[in-house]
């Protein structure tokens, strides 16, 4: 069964460093998302991406964040200068036709900023 895969599963980084989280969406999907979940809290939307551009972003997704689809298969989330409060589980998701179809989530990347 096709699935969304994320790497790495766990990333530890020092405050102020840049991190790139990687995702491989399901191959025929056209819409891609990043969500995050701070430990013990609810899942929060960060950004949606379609046709090589951001279609919607939340207040959390400030100038420190960026997304990219560098090739035909990967979808990345970059945090330029990490803060302690960026520590969270980051989930990538993809869907075939955006709001018309269900989104499938990857297994997540746990980011720990020290």
């Amino acid at each position, binding site marked *: 069964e096709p699935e969304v895969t994320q790497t790495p599963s766990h990333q530890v980084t020092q405050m102020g460093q840049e991190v790139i989280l990687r995702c491989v969406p399901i191959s025929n999907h056209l*819409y891609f*998302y990043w*969500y995050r979940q701070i430990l013990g809290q*609810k*899942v*929060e*939307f960060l950004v*949606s991406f*379609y046709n090589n551009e951001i*279609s*919607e972003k*939340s207040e959390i997704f400030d100038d420190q964040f960026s997304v990219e689809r560098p090739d035909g298969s990967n979808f990345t989330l970059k945090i330029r200068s990490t803060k302690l409060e960026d520590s969270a589980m980051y*989930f990538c998701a993809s*869907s075939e036709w*955006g*709001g*018309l179809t*269900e*989104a*499938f*989530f*990857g*297994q*997540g990347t*746990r980011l720990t900023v020290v």
Partner: protein
Amino acid sequence: ELKVEQNPLFLSMQEGKNYTIYCNYSTTSDRLYWYRQDPGKSLESLFVLLSNGAVKQEGRLMASLDTKARLSTLHITAAVHDLSATYFCAVERNFGNEKLTFGTGTRLTIIP
């Protein structure tokens, strides 16, 4: 702004008992999802509810949607330990608006 609230936040129940988790949302929605999350794991899709009166069942779990009341329920029948997890509802506000707004989650613990 769409708000999604679940209750209870924590639920401890004995095996064999029945219980219901409630999900209220604040504005019109086209679809509602229920997800299960085990500790440290990803979100497993349980149900997608698309219309008023929709009811779906899978094993001991049954989900329903009342769009007029802006309420969805997840009913657990004869709970077993394997159902211990955190359950989230998530609402998609309107057709084509892809993002999901998640509820606060209900941490369910089934006690033998």
